[in-house]
């Protein structure tokens, strides 16, 4: 009985944290939207961010700075909302945010490994995650740009979006109005950025415990599942957890030794890359900007357009290519350093191009 009560208490606490996270997320987005206007001359003037490639690099580097992809993608949405970016620029900035999402894990792991704390192999999943994300997200840019340029989703209407946005504004206005009057735009934008990062941390704490054991999916460290099974599992779990790294972390308790077969993790990460945009979709909806919603829908569609043929038709050569690239990267500290350096240099080169 006591146990049940404790369980109910924990559930209520988690719901409370989740609700706080949502409110904080919405509030942070509004703050950033109010402050984003000042960024237009900064981005187009001093930083010379004018092309899609610049925005790809910007989103990539921003994810490094905030140590996560989701806040960087949400920032891209607010910039679009404030007309600081075009739809295509926003699309590539969101792609950049995905590419930079798991870099921090690799960097910390590398520092540990150089100091001799860890074996190289513990970095494998991080490297694999980055490789898979890049192999999916980079070709998806072409599909996404085509969708947006052709305006295929322009006919989609979101009539409820305006009403929802009005409701959220009415809820947040008593706090937002005085804040906007007091704080300068840069402080609003910066403060919003910090709060959005905090809201994602709260989301992680509010997550319910997922029990794969009961679903018969507890043997990912030993047996090899069909690629489509792992693809949809990754897609579903990430839809619930909002983060690729959190959904990978959920697999840890399934193996006593913290292992997963690479045949299983590859389609899982591909699926996760499709649904990881769900929080960005929420950001676009909360901002009440139809163009932002279109960008996210285009992003998810292009990820599906690229990943499904890989999983259904070309999975064997694809997994071989990814596995061989992983082997090369992990073969020596020199190779890993080259890989890591390229992750720094490529986005910088994109921004400076």
């Amino acid at each position, binding site marked *: 009985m006591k146990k049940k009560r404790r369980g109910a208490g924990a559930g209520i606490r988690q719901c409370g944290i989740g609700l706080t996270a949502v409110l904080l997320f919405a509030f942070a987005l509004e703050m950033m939207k109010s402050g984003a206007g000042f960024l237009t001359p900064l981005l187009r003037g001093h930083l010379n961010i004018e092309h899609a490639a610049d925005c790809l690099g910007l989103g990539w580097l921003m994810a490094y700075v905030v140590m996560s992809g989701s806040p960087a993608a949400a920032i891209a949405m607010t910039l679009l909302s404030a007309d600081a970016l075009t739809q295509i620029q926003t699309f590539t900035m969101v792609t950049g945010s995905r590419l930079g999402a798991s870099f921090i894990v690799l960097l910390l*792991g590398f520092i*540990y490994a150089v100091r001799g704390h*860890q*074996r*190289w*192999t*513990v*970095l*494998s*999943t991080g490297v*694999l995650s980055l490789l898979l994300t890049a192999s999916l997200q980079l070709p998806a840019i072409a599909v996404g740009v085509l969708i947006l340029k052709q305006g295929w989703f322009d006919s989609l209407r979101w009539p409820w979006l305006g009403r929802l946005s009005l409701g959220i504004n009415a809820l947040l206005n008593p706090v937002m109005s005085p804040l906007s009057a007091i704080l300068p735009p840069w402080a609003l934008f910066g403060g919003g950025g910090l709060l959005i990062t905090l809201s994602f941390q709260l989301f992680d704490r509010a997550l319910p415990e997922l029990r794969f054991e009961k679903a*018969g*999916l507890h043997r990912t*460290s*030993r*047996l*090899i*599942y*069909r*690629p489509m*099974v792992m693809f949809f599992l990754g897609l579903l779990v990430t839809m619930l957890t909002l983060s690729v790294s959190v959904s*990978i*972390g959920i*697999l*840890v308790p399934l*193996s006593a*030794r*913290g*292992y*997963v*077969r*690479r*045949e299983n*993790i590859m389609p899982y990460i591909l699926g996760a890359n499709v649904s990881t945009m769900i929080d960005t979709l929420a950001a676009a909806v909360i901002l009440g900007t139809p163009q932002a919603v279109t960008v996210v829908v285009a992003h998810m569609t292009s990820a599906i357009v690229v990943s499904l043929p890989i999983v259904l038709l070309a999975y064997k050569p694809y*997994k*071989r290519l990814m*596995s061989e690239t*992983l*082997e090369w990267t992990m073969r020596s500290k020199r190779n890993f350093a080259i890989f890591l350096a390229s992750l720094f240099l490529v986005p910088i080169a994109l921004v400076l191009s």
Partner: protein
Amino acid sequence: MTQKIRMLLYSDGSEVGRLALALGQRIAKAMADTVDILSIASIPDEEDVSIQAVKAIADELRANDISVAIYRRPGAMGEELLEQTDATDYDLIVISSRGRRGIKRLLAGSRACTILGTVATSVLVAKGRERRGISHILACSAGGPASKETIRFAARVAHALGASVTLLHVMSQVALEESAQGADLEAEAEELMEREAREGIHLEDMLEILHNERVEAQALVRHGLVVEEIVAEAKKGHFDMLVIGAHTTPNIGGLLFSDLSQQIVLAANRPVLIVHQD
């Protein structure tokens, strides 16, 4: 004295069919006391060639005190084989693979894989070039308790044919977290056995099974994708035959798991023995 087995050999008069018949004959001489030969030919010319070859092999097997029955049927291989295996319990079926690739396989499917998916018996799929003998076998162990059956069967075959065995285990795992025992993911077989890691203990158990059958055996661990590593090792080590387990998972499990044995049969260019596990 080793218990003899009952075998079903398949012949269709084709080049690969003759390969299967020759391979089956070699194993039957060493292991079987009863052999049924199913001769199927949808093309009349092939039928003549097939029955002549079948009769010659049957005579040779009978000369080795093996009871032989010949069944001649028209029709498709899959249906006839299934009918035959439904009527009689076999320990081993020997079939050939047409080796369809690319679009052809996509459109017509794989005959060998269809049979593997339907019969509940160990199947030897003859593939690749004709071999002078079976002297070196690559036996693959998945690392779980079900592998015992695979390795026991491999040991019996190796003993009967006087072949040596390389026991292969592929580790395709990657570490999910910092606290994972990463060292095991890089270790060779000897290291895993010395360290008494889970895979090391398993390999020692499997080696014991092979040694108990007085088969010369050594353990090997490769790191990478399971199917690719098995096929690469088979090629690198010039093995004459691959032995793998077929894990049949009932109900929903069958929809969840990949069929690695079928993938290996399709990718390997040498005979593959798929040991059925209940």
